[in-house]
């Protein structure tokens, strides 16, 4: 779907083969009945394929295959979408990127190395919203050599038993916030599982009660969390767009095949011009989604000045049309499309989850406008 180098093709192909063999749709349905969908062995194998290192500089133990790690990872995210695969791909990579860029040496040696090796996973507590309703509210207070954290992160992704949470916290509500890395097994961390739309990508609410982390677990200079969250949001938006494009592609393929195989009134469904025109619209939306996701990955991965606009446009557009495209595929399937037995809902679930988390399409459309306004102010 994307224009890639030979090395990127190799990464995508090995990922595709692995996910196809490991997570066929029937396996995803079976996972749905489990309390936990995380499998340490399977995730570790993914890390060996290169899923965890791409956004981390070589000096910090990571490395890309093309020089643009985000463009590399886009292909992996695309395949995760195509297979509605479990595994905290986006959270782990976003947190690894944060640790690689801004983390202390101690974090590089410990938690980051575990993330890169696939021995741990991570979640990012950021949840941007329209309006003033803040999501994670965590207070940080100094205590001896460490920092005491109190508060809640009401919606974060579940992962490995050995895991970390990247959360922004300030001394008071208006104060500048800093990022901290919190091990899920630290005393005072309480987790309660949440329900949700995706069968295999699970979420939980996290409460922090007098959780003490070492000073070296602060990520970045004091007060940089809000600026850094925006940087990480660009990465997350691109990767979510990549997953949604994957889910769209699979749903579209299933539907195209269906229009050939399904006959009604003595002729194939796909021979009706109404159906053909709808498929043409969907194919165009798919191509446009892939194009903007790829362009965003290129610009964000290369730190271009207009990168944030592209990342925002990618999430705003793909997040809007992705789930709608899959719903149209359901409509074209008729009754079978709303059964649990059919695979379509796997892609509908993943596309919708990605569209809604880490900022809705509307949030990103607003972000696009703010960026233009900022440019206008600068130009004035």
């Amino acid at each position, binding site marked *: 779907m994307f*224009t890639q180098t030979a090395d990127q093709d190799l990464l995508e192909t090995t990922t595709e083969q692995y996910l196809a063999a490991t997570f066929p749709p029937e396996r995803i349905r079976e996972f749905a009945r489990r309390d936990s969908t995380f499998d340490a062995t399977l995730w570790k194998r993914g890390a060996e394929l290169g899923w965890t290192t791409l956004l981390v500089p070589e000096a910090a133990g990571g490395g890309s295959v093309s020089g643009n790690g985000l463009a590399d990872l886009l292909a992996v995210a695309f395949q995760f979408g195509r297979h509605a695969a479990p595994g905290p791909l986006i959270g782990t990579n976003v947190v690894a990127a944060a640790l690689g860029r801004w983390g202390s040496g101690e974090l590089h040696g410990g938690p980051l190395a575990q993330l890169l090796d696939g021995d741990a996973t991570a979640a990012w507590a950021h949840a941007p919203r*329209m309006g003033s309703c803040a999501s994670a509210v965590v207070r940080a207070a100094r205590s001896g050599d460490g920092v005491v954290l109190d508060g809640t992160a009401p919606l974060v992704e579940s992962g490995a038993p050995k895991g970390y949470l990247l959360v922004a916290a300030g001394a008071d509500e208006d104060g500048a916030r800093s990022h901290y890395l919190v091990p899920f097994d630290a005393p005072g961390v309480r987790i309660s599982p949440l329900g949700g739309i995706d069968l295999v990508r699970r979420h939980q609410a996290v409460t922090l009660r007098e959780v003490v982390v070492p000073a070296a677990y602060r990520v970045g200079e004091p007060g940089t969390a809000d600026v850094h969250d925006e940087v990480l949001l660009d990465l997350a938006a691109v990767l979510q767009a990549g997953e949604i494009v994957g889910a769209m592609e699979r749903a579209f393929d299933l539907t*195209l095949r269906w*229009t*050939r195989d399904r006959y009604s009134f003595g002729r*194939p469904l*796909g*021979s009706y*011009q109404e*159906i*053909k*025109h709808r*498929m*043409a*619209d969907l*194919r*165009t939306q798919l*191509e*446009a989604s*892939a*194009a*903007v996701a*790829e*362009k965003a990955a290129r610009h964000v991965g290369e730190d271009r000045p207009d990168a944030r*606009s*592209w990342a*925002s*446009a990618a999430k*705003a*557009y793909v997040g809007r049309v992705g789930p709608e495209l899959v719903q149209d595929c359901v409509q074209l399937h008729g009754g079978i499309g709303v059964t649990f037995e059919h695979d379509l809902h796997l892609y509908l679930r993943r596309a919708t989850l990605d569209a809604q988390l880490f900022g809705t399409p*509307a949030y*990103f*459309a*607003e*972000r*696009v*406008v703010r960026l*233009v*306004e900022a440019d*206008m102010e600068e130009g004035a």
Partner: protein
Amino acid sequence: MSAIAQDGAALEDVDAFAARARAWLAENMPPADPAKDTFFLHAATHPADEEVLARAATCRELQRRLFDGGFAGICVPRQYGGQELTPAHQTAFNREIKGYDYPAEIQASTFIPCMAVLLEFGTEEQKLRHIPRMLRGEEIWVQLLSEPGGGSDAAGAVTSATRDGDRWLLNGSKIWTTSGWWGDWALCLARTNWDVEKHRGLTVFSLPMSAPGLQIRQIELVNGSKDFCQEFLTDVVVPDADRIGDVDAGWSVMTRWLYHERTISGGSPYVTGGGNRPNAGPYELAALIEAARRLGTIDDSTTRALIGEAQTSSLVLRALVESVTHKMATGSLPHHAAAMPRLFGGTANARRAAIATELYGDAGVVWAPDDEIAAQVGLGYLIRQAACIGGGTTEMARNVIAERLLGMPREHRADTSAFRDVPRGPRASGAH
């Protein structure tokens, strides 16, 4: 980097060429006026005829300067007045010319498709006669292609060409000719055989727009534009020497004609410029934001959502055009994939006009006499479906995507018999 031209001389290095072009442009070409739209690319403006003719004269002048400077027809063979360089040189020149005024309005149709078609199908005499004049800005060419009864069905042309010794007599009507009223010459598609399947009875001719028997009428569009024309041909005489390609082989010319016409969005070695996109007027994002500030609606969340949608969609269109162009060039998508940016662009532009109109509210439908921008929004809304009609409707694009790209079943055809017997509706005339 160095390649060898046909006559054995080494081609100029692209970087050296670009440096030479940069210096020449600075000396010889006027700067572009970013506030001024090119007159037919922007549907919401409707200049007076005198302004159009003045601009056409400027285009001829600028084209002549390019020719005298050695920068016209960069990929055209030397014997026809070109530079015989490579597409890479043209691309480099197009990069350098950004920011300068250039003859944007005569690139289409003069150079593509007309000059490109002449290069591929013209006789040596035809090429020697016309191409140097095109490159000097002396001949502006237009396309006599669509017909009043035809719509998207170009191969269903009923304008007839009847042989009369060593000449042809053309009768019929053509329509939607861009710049028809100020063009000099035209390519014209006509029917020469009514007894075969429709694609197999067509022939392409060239003729001067001043030919006796050729009547030209400017069509007034709903936004006031009068650049499109309809032509009426009554016993227009065309010498056989002005026929382009073989008799009844017009559709193979047509296939390339349509191909070259589509390359206006990118990828043609015969187009100069392409960088100075016309100002999108009231649809520029900054203009939408300014308007919302003036109207006091900039903090309204619905207004902001509309502006965000407009900007998102214009970025997505840009990414889509780039990506599909690249994929077609590398062969990972067939050339039919061009229908996707066409479909997306048509619907996105129509939606953009609706967004601007909603954002302007009452100011988009009633305006002060000197409020040109509000007028452009209102008139732009009236003409907005043109974006989904001109150059092949979005419905045709959907057929191409479904049938050619996705391999879905083709529509039933009712026009496969001898063209004479193909039903053309109760009001069709000119049966032979």
